[in-house]
């Protein structure tokens, strides 16, 4: 498994929409436990008021990320591979929905 960062910019209009997407995402992850691991996500407020996310996943391939996104109806703007992680401090907030 490799680590990837996935940008999903401006995908949702409201927090409820985003929460519904999280539920779909989790349901779909059940199906591909060997190919995909959701590590964490940062929720962004875009300049136009919509919500976006930057997600960190471990995955066997970029295709596994796209297949999951397509099944769950999540946008994918860009997938970038992570080569190293430097953690200076733990994330300040963690509110898993």
């Amino acid at each position, binding site marked *: 498994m*490799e680590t*990837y960062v996935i940008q999903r910019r401006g*995908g949702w209009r409201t927090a409820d929409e985003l929460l*519904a997407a999280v*539920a*779909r995402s989790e*349901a*779909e992850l*059940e*199906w591909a*436990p*060997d190919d995909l691991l959701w590590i964490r996500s940062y929720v962004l407020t875009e300049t136009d008021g919509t919500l976006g996310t930057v997600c960190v996943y471990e995955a066997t*391939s*970029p*295709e596994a990320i*796209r*297949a999951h*996104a*397509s*099944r*769950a*109806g*999540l*946008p*994918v*703007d*860009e*997938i*970038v*591979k992570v080569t190293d992680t430097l953690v200076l401090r733990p994330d300040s907030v963690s509110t898993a929905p």
Partner: protein
Amino acid sequence: MALLERDEALAALTAALRDAVDGSGRIVFVSGEAGVGKTTLVRTFAERSDAQVRVVSGACEALFTPRPLGPVHDIAVEVGGPLRAALESSADRVTILASLLAELRATPTAAVLEDVHWADEATLDAIAYLGRRIDTAPCLLVVTFRDDELGPQHPLRLVLGELPSRVKARIRLDPLSEGAVEELAREAHRSPFGLHAATGGNPFFVTEVLAADGEDIPETVRDAVLARAGRLSEAGRRLLEAVAVVPGTTEFWLLERLAPQERPQLDECLASGMLTSMLGGVGFRHELARLAIESSLSPDRRVGLNQAAFRAIADPPSGEPDLAALAHHADAAGDAEAVLRFAPAAAERAAQFGAHREAAAQYARAVRFAGELSLDAQARLYEGVSYESYLTGDFADAIAASTDALERYRTLGDVLNEGDSLHALSRLLWSVGRTPEATVMAREAVELLESLSPGHELAMAYAQVAALSMSADDLEGVVSWSTRAGDLAERLGDREILASTRVSVGGAEYAAGVPGGREVLERELDLALSTGLEEVAARAFNLLVRAGMRRREYAVVDRYLDPGFEYCRERELGNFRQGLGAERARRFLDLGEWTAATDAADLVLSTARTAGMAPFVALTVLGQVRARRGDPDAWAPLDRALEMAEPSGELQRLALIAQARAEAAWLVRDRRRALDEARAVYPLTLEKQHPWFAGELALLQWKLGGLDSAPQWIAEPYALQIAGEWRGAADAWKARGCPYEAARALAEGDEKAQQEAYEAFLRLGAVPAAKEVGRSLRALGVSVPRGPRASTRENPAQLTARELEVLELVAEGLRNAEIADRLVLSRRTVDHHVSAILRKLDAGTRGEAVAAAGRAGLFKDR
């Protein structure tokens, strides 16, 4: 002991069974680590299921070489009738599978196949066969497997991947939580302290620890099992040891003969819970326990028990002896003579059932004991390994075994067999892209065989040189060697070789663009189909599709791709099927259906084990899609593909990978690298005058400013584009159904054309190309909108893949709760999907949505 934390899994199985009884058959896969409780779950489910549902089950055994169709045999014993008759009369595989299906259709059934990670190839085929047909049977097939034993190359993965998603669901069992382990400890009146940590929540381990009743917690499962066995009487332990040398069920008659004196101790072993009753016999409650006991046997005791098992199985109370079991026990007892007698026989039997992987393993087992045999007999066994490995696509094993056979014939001075082995080896080397070595061997074979009186072996060697000439795009060579082969075949009356040489000539001519070549190939295909020359037909399908793809004649490709794939699948022509599977991936790439392309490529790569043409082509697809999407990891597959192509020296491989690599470099704006990649192979495409390969490489160089003009004979769309006629080029690509190439041409046009290209790239998800056009448009002063997302752009109504899947079930008239069951989703998720579908299709009711989707052609793929 209570079944804890399995309510959800039971509910999912129950829902699937309800669907099945209603006539929509299902396959549910239950997976989890060894000892997690898959069998317990399935047994509980079976006990609780409706009395009107018949439950049948079969299990795969942990044999190095399992009995072909083992679990189907188990089921046949339970149901009897035509299925049992088919198996007992050694009917062919198709008849057996058809009677199995008929049996499952006849009455509502839950069929359980356990431990499929150990399944033989024929059993996996049976699952695939049922999977494609189960949706119309009142049958729930429950398949259990250990997912921690399923490596990336495990053949079960292919079966899982190929099953239609409508019929399959997966339940993954996790180890028990700390709370559940505490509850079990309380029930057993034991301290839960440290128990969860030591056992990792593995239910089998927990049970063993609690049953061992010691002070300390044993460190491993094995220690726990041995501690528990230590509490039995001496005779009870000896009985346990006897049962431990027999994987799966030890039938009562076998037990009598293995442990006649200890037989009365059976009740003690059953009461202790270490053994359990099974159909017609007894067995360990869990394979982990059997392995623990077996591994504790002294060498003498193990050999003695295996000798006794061998003698007993060789003389069963009824029916024929089980050859695979005989070979297993002979091996375990170190009895060379018996292995050499029964392993090859078991191999033949396995091959007859299409279980070629097991057949190869049985021959390999015989080889290990063959040191005392004559060289000739040894060579025959190696040939067996080689041929069966070749059929399963294990080329590396096939080449090694074939080389071993060749050496022995050489030492013997057996010229005919030496020549024949050289020919076989040449074919194998060619299959993995080692073309130059293959050519040397084929010529050597011809030389040797020409020194004898001409026969079939020589005709085949000629045909092999002809086929190799085709790989080298040497049309003259193909024709002259085919003529020699054909003349000799005609004299010998060998239809197959004759047909095969004609296919070579037609294939070479079609690939080279000689008029009439394709028609020759098509005629030979029809002839081969009608006369049952399967390999010839499979090869003709492959040549038509591959040459059609490289010449971008998609009408030809579409005529032969799917029928060819089905033909090869039904006849287990694995290598030919893989070849077509890889071309199917490229077909999707050219069509602009990139997700389908990577899925198809993945399917090839997850099963191909060596450097053949199929994985090579699949890797080019994977790399190209990633590069075109701007996804990471594009170069890894392109580097591997290059490594595979280089030793071959073939245009077919070198040009394909060069264009993929040049394009990938261009898309990351690495101009120098793109030019280098294109220039390295361009001269070869000119020398062979391949209009499409030369065209693509010329275009890339031209775009990079590294080429002023190209020869006139390059393919039309490329010639137009290089001549500055971007509109004509785009139209030519559109006419062929190639949206990416069309957009690439439009990107060189005026502002309006560039906007069209931009839109098209966004639709395809071609991010880097879209960005490039976007930059150009902005330079023209055009404001570039952010387009809708690629993932929702694959259909006009912008439904996601999951929404489409839900919509199809809506179209079948299912309610949301039923859809939730079917797709193993929560009810809430399905509600959400359905309202999204209605909104996107602008429909007020479900009926309207289905009608709108029908009009928009959204159901076209099913």
